[in-house]
Each structure stands twice: as C-alpha cells, then as structure tokens.
C-alpha cells in the first residue's frame, strides 16, 4: 500500500471514527441519565 492510501485511510477513518464513537458515548450518557435519574436521596449516598 502506498503512503498516501495509507495516510488518507487512517486519517479519514480516524477522524470520522473518533467523532462517531464520542457521539455514541454521548447518547449512552443520555440513556444512563434517563434510566437512572438524579434524585435527592442519591446525593445523600454519594
């Protein structure tokens, strides 16, 4: 594989992949917050 095919493959997948994974994580955080909402008593726990 020539260096430019290599470089653009890594760069394209790397940038798009990082963005998608972090977007996925943001959705998972929202889901967690929805399933386990903050309640007053939970502040007493922690």
């Amino acid at each position, binding site marked *: 594989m020539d260096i430019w095919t*290599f470089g653009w493959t*890594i760069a394209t997948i*790397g940038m798009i992949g990082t963005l998608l*994974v*972090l*977007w996925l994580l*943001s959705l998972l*955080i929202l889901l967690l*917050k929805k399933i386990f909402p903050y309640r007053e008593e939970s502040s007493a726990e922690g």
Partner: protein
Amino acid sequence: METALAAGLQALLVGFTHLELGQVVMILIGSLLLYLGIGKGFEPLLLLPIGFGAILVNIPLAGLMEEEGALRFFYDTGVLTEIFPLLIFIGIGAMTDFQPLLENPKIILLGAAGQFGIFLTLLLALALGFDKLEAVAIGIIGACDGPTSIYVTSKYAPHLLGAVSVAAYSYMALVPLIQPPIMRLLTTEREKKIVMGTVKQPVSKTTKILFPIVVTVAASLVAPLGTPLIGMLMLGNLLKESGVVERLKQASENEITNIVTLLLGLSIGATMEAEKFLRVETLMILALGLIAIALDTVVGLLFGKLMCLLTRGKINPLIGAAGISAFPMAARVAQVEGQKYNKKNYLLMHAMSANAAGQIGSIIAAAIMLSVLDGLGI
C-alpha cells in the same frame, strides 16, 4: 609500581577521554529539560526525570542502557511492555472527574474535534518523508496526552520515543502559550463574548458508576486494540466513583502514579542517547508536534463555531480549544481568554466538559488508529 599508578590514574580519566561532542550536547539538553522543569515549572514531574535520564545515558562507558544496565531494565520492563503508560492511566482515571461531561454530554463532540490534529499531522509527517509507522508515532503527539503518545510510539516506532515524549510533554506545558493567539485569530469578538448559562443537571451516583463500565465496553467493541488504554483509564475512574475502594483509589493516584512517573521519565530520558537523538529528524518531530497541537486547537475552535451556529449562539467557540487532552490547562486557557472579553463570563465548567471529553477523545483516537493499523495488516 609506577606503571600501576599510571594505569590507575588513567582509569580515572577514561570517562573524559571517551566523551564525545554529541554526548556533551545531550548533557546540555538534559540540563535544559531540568531547567524547564525546575526553573520554569513546565511539567516538572516528567521533565525532571527525563532530563536526568538524558544526562545519565550520555555519560561515556556508564553502560546504563546496555544489557543488564539499570535504565535498560526499567525501559525493557516498563516501556517496551507498555506497562508504565497503562499504570499511569489508572492514576489519571482515579484523578479525573467526568461529572461536568456527564452533566452536558453534547460537549463531548468537541473532544473528537480536538484530536483531528493527530491525523492531519500524520499526513504532514508522511509528506516530509517519514515512514508509515514513524508518521503514526509523530501524529500521536497531537493527542496532547503523554501516556498515549508513549504507548503508541513504543509499539510502532520505539526509536522515536525520546523525541516524541519530549515534544508531547513540553507542548502540553506550553498550551497556555500556544493556544491563545490561535483562539484570538479564529473567533470574532461577538463569539468571544457569548455567555454560556450554567448547566444544572445533577447526575446520579449510579450513572457515575456505570459510565466507566459502559465507555469501556462500547469503545473497546469498536476498537478492541485500544482496550488496554481505555480500560485502564476507566478502571481508575471506577475506583474513584465506586466509593468502596478508597485505598486502591489513593494508591492509584498517589503511590503507583508517582513511582511509575519516576521510572517512566527516567526510561524515556534513557532513550535520548546522542547518536539516536541528535538528528535532523528530531527537530522535524519537535516542529511537527507543535503543528499537531496548533491543528487540534484550530479544528476544535472551528467545530466550536459550528456548534455555536447550530445552537444559535448558545455555545462559545472558545471552549472548542479545550477539546484536547491537556487537563485542566486547556480549560483554564478558555476561561482566561473568555474573561478578557467579558468579565462576567464563566466558561470554566463548560471548558472542563470539553477538556474531559478531550481526555477520552485522545484515547479513542489512538484506539481507532491501532485497530485500523491492525486491520491494514501493519
């Protein structure tokens, strides 16, 4: 008797007679790193042992990096096996509070934009004639994350470890100097003055405990080769958030991190032998490292501007510059710059969200790169 005396005295001079110009230069460079760490306070925890390691390894005939040399032992045991950076990640995880990010998860995207410098610098390194794996190691300086840079470089281009590590840690310390001019240049006065309201979305303890587990599983399934990196960071965070292993948390953020930091710094310094370090490539790597962090800042700011546009002016683009991994320096820079234009503007918590996202983003970017390299058979 006279011959024996002469031979004995000659043995005391052998160090001087074997001292080469390159080694003198490296001892001076080691001393400069010590000065930056001690005198200027730039990342002293790392620059001090790195600088001293660089001096030690350039003493002629000391043999510290030869077979059975002390520094060689640390290097082989901790750096070549990638154990040291992983242990450091447990400590970082135990010290990091992801609460601001959990409160405002949409900011996490800035942590992705802040990593684009890695990939753009990789392309630049290829253009300058570095081979594929060297370009990967140089690009990773843009992660602005010392342990990640060391992990990736020791895997793919261990001969560049000294230059890449020095660049990564030096530029992390210089973030307050590198970022502000770019921030001023790329944002309008109106954007700089945008006040971001307080986000009051308290997070339950269950969410905080589940967060590191969910991140580990989700990110590792996408990029399995990055599991050691993300797994150790999140293990450290789980120790902190679980609240039931205070001793392990304390040990991770104190004893383990301190010991490993010392040995890691020494080991990196030990890679800075004159014949390996004093090359044109080293200067090119230092320049590319600076470009990488500048590009991270540029893309982070542009992404911040895009988010500002999409939210109709609710996001101050300055926090985009905090989407890098230099924690919490980059967040403080965004706060300071924002206050220069609007004294009532408190961007710190929002910038901390972006900065925490940058910590995760840098590891995700490295993990994806490792997996793609594996997929390409490299």
